[in-house]
């Protein structure tokens, strides 16, 4: 492996020399020369921000785990580099008019163990998620599937208990991967079993604490893919170490580029930065008690905060202010008019606060975490901004694990959160806004439960007609702005850092940036 890496470095050196020598020919022949150098094969070292706790394909154990699993596994459908649904193991699919029956036609594909991908494997994989006592992350969402029929080896029919339009998006998530039925039977409950999938790379080796290696699967169902021979996912929990590893050429790609290092990577002639603005930062509220039970107070906070202060304090200027709801442009529910609903207006904020019965402000506890600088600094900026309208915030900054525990227990007045929707379908909003039976969750504002919002979200899930759906989510946006259970702060840049000779790796825009690992199948070295 190391010799290959050295060779690649030598090629890099050659490219530089060629550029210097052939200054005149650079425009004309440089392109051709690079084309000639673009060879099949090679090894990519991919620096990840952490080591997965598990490779269980049904559990969302964070972005590093997803990145690796997206090299090993494929689902019926997945999200492609353009952020659109792409047919993977399913050659085609059909949804009945009542959105109750989904029929999939499978393509000819093989698992890494050499067995063909059949309808039985699909059935077993989905039932593994929906089974009684399963710990699958999307068990509730896929739980709507009532029965799975396999009329022949290449056809799967899912029948739902009730219409559920976003289902296809949940099936596109990395946690809906298809694995062999025989593997599930034998290893389904063993967290250390060697994963077997139908993806472009097969699992090769996991040196705990250091790196996980996958190697090219020769019988992958896409012609001429993947390009690389193998990928080493190396774990770098420390962000500075990760950036240094990229700059010194120890690795070719890194995820989670720290905002402070984005500019230096952009400026480096050997490196490039792939950025998108998918994830967002927001404030969640415990709406059980005053003052945060009052929508006017939450709105006042939204008016009061200068978004630029947060972007500059916590993100080195790398983000986009968010004055409306965090719906990415191009997603259903996005509207240009409402994107700037809450412009920065301190006087208006003071007025609203006075009308709500707090002319002199109040004191509250802001939960964030000291473990991640951007959470910590967002909290500090919010504290400073809200002091201007008389709200005195006391910071509560445990480590990440402690913060999650408090979040899940509803033990906060307001809290800094940084996240993204799970899917590109507007039903991602349910996870955040829906009230229902479990009122204290990770991603909702504790105890927020609005009948109008619940009703609109319910309707959105069962309506297949796109125009009709668009209307429902437009109504939802109006109501959500009025109630403001969240105060949205900014879209943050989410970046990968790459060496210049790495081609084909794409940062998928919008929420799907965390699933960009799938594009390793297109990645090649020049």
């Amino acid at each position, binding site marked *: 492996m*190391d010799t290959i890496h050295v060779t690649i470095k030598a090629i890099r050196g050659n490219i530089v020399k060629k550029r210097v020598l052939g200054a005149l020919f650079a425009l004309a022949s440089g392109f051709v020369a690079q084309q000639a150098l673009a060879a099949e094969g090679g090894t990519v070292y991919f620096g990840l921000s952490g*080591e997965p*706790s*598990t490779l269980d394909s049904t*559990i*969302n*154990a*964070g972005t590093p785990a997803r990145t690796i699993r997206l090299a090993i596994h494929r689902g019926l459908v997945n999200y492609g580099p353009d952020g659109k649904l792409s047919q993977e193991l399913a050659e085609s699919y059909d949804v009945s008019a009542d959105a109750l029956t989904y029929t999939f036609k499978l393509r000819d594909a093989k698992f890494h163990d050499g067995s063909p991908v059949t309808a039985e494997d699909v059935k077993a994989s989905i039932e593994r998620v929906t089974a009684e*006592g*399963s*710990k699958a*992350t*999307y*068990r*509730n969402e896929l739980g709507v599937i009532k029965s799975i029929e396999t009329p022949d080896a290449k056809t799967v029919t899912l029948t739902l208990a009730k219409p559920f339009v976003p289902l296809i998006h949940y099936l596109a998530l990395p946690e809906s991967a298809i694995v062999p039925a025989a593997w599930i039977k034998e290893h389904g409950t063993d*967290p*250390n079993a060697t994963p077997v999938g139908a993806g472009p790379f097969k699992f090769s080796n996991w040196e*705990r*604490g*250091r790196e996980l290696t996958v190697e090219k699967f020769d019988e992958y169902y896409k012609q001429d893919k993947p390009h690389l021979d193998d990928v080493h996912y*190396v*774990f*770098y*929990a*420390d962000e*500075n*170490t990760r950036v*240094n*590893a990229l*700059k*010194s*050429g*120890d690795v070719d790609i890194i995820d989670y580029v720290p905002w402070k290092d984005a500019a230096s990577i952009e400026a480096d002639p050997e490196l490039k930065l792939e950025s998108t603005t998918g994830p967002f930062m927001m404030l969640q509220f415990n709406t059980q008690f005053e003052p945060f039970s009052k929508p006017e107070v939450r709105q006042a906070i939204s008016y009061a905060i200068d978004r630029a202060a947060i972007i500059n304090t916590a993100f080195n200027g790398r983000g986009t202010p968010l004055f409306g709801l965090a719906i990415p442009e191009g997603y259903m529910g996005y509207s240009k008019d409402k994107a700037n609903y809450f412009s920065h207006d301190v006087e208006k904020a003071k007025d609203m606060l006075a009308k709500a019965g707090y002319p002199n402000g109040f004191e509250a506890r802001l939960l964030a975490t000291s*473990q991640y600088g951007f959470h910590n600094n967002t909290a500090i900026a919010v504290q400073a901004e809200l002091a201007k309208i008389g709200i005195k915030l006391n910071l509560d900054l*445990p*480590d*990440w*694990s*402690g913060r*999650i*525990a*408090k979040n*899940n227990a509803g033990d906060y007045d307001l809290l800094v959160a940084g*996240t993204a929707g*799970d899917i590109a379908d507007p039903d991602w909003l349910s*996870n955040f806004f829906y009230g229902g039976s*479990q009122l204290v*969750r*990770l*991603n909702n504002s504790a105890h927020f439960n609005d009948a109008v919002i619940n009703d609109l979200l319910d309707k959105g899930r069962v309506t297949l007609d796109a125009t009709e759906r668009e209307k429902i989510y437009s109504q939802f946006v109006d109501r959500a702005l009025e109630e403001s259970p969240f105060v949205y702060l900014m879209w943050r840049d989410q970046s990968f850092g790459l060496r210049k000779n790495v081609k084909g790796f794409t940062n998928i825009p919008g929420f799907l940036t965390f699933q960009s690992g799938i594009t390793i199948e297109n990645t090649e070295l020049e």
Partner: protein
Amino acid sequence: MNPSIAGALLLVCRKLLTAFVQLLVVATLIFSVMYIMPGDPVLLLLGAESNPSPEAVASMRSQLGLDQPVLTQYFTWLWNALHLDFGNSLTNGYPVSSYVLANLPRTLELAFAAIIVATLIGVPLGIAAALKRGSMRDTVLTSIATVGISVPVYILGTLMVLFFSIKLGWLPASGYTDISRNVVEHFRKLALPALALGFGLAASIARMTRSSMLEILGRDFVRALRAKGMPERRIIWQHVLRNAAIPIVTIIGLQLGNLMGGTVLVEAMFNWPGLSTLLVGAVSARNYPLVQGAMLAIAALFIVINLAVELFYSLLDPRIRRKRS
């Protein structure tokens, strides 16, 4: 029995008993600290970014034995630990001992490499400074030593990475290659962390060497040797250095234990997969058994090294042995 051998045995027994009690206290502290800390391993295990159902959380909790009373967990753990069974990692069920055994030698290797680096740099510098006391050379070397002691290891490490890896491209910025796979790469990756960790120590060794040398140089027997007409070179190497060596050896030995603290930062900075890296990762994941195992291993290592140094030292210098027994 020879009274001095009996005395030595008694000393060893007493030291071992003290070490055992220390370990027990540390073990209890380690166990309690984990349970005082907020944060839930089960939620992290089931994916903190998602929303695990309460049933899934409860079933996972009982599967991991985390629903037992804390005291029950404590005594079970202590009993097993006495049998060198530290339980299984919460995240994947691997035995904690296998993690600790894999990472322990890497931490030791780093610490020893740092000691060697420090000795190779520190002792010659100290001698050089002492021989030309008050000269320009002495001033420069003493200043370097002062800087070396004052600069925190993470700043020094970062500067080294910037210079040797990013600017010059001589050495890898971080990582680890198993010696069985590639010997050269193994030592290339060991070089920077060992240098970063060893540099501060080199500075204190240089200072200790200098002052110790100066003290001996001022003794009467040195004047006598000079008067006798012995060549200066021979005086320095055969007489002065040998007499100055004891405090130097002591400081090197005692620093070995302290180096364990330095490895926490250095391992993180250079992605060196030792005990500290293991520990830090396990703490963020609230992987209780792994945290306990790793901390216990670090504490044990510290205690054992200090014990060994003390025993070795007392064997080296009969005066100490006699005084204590």
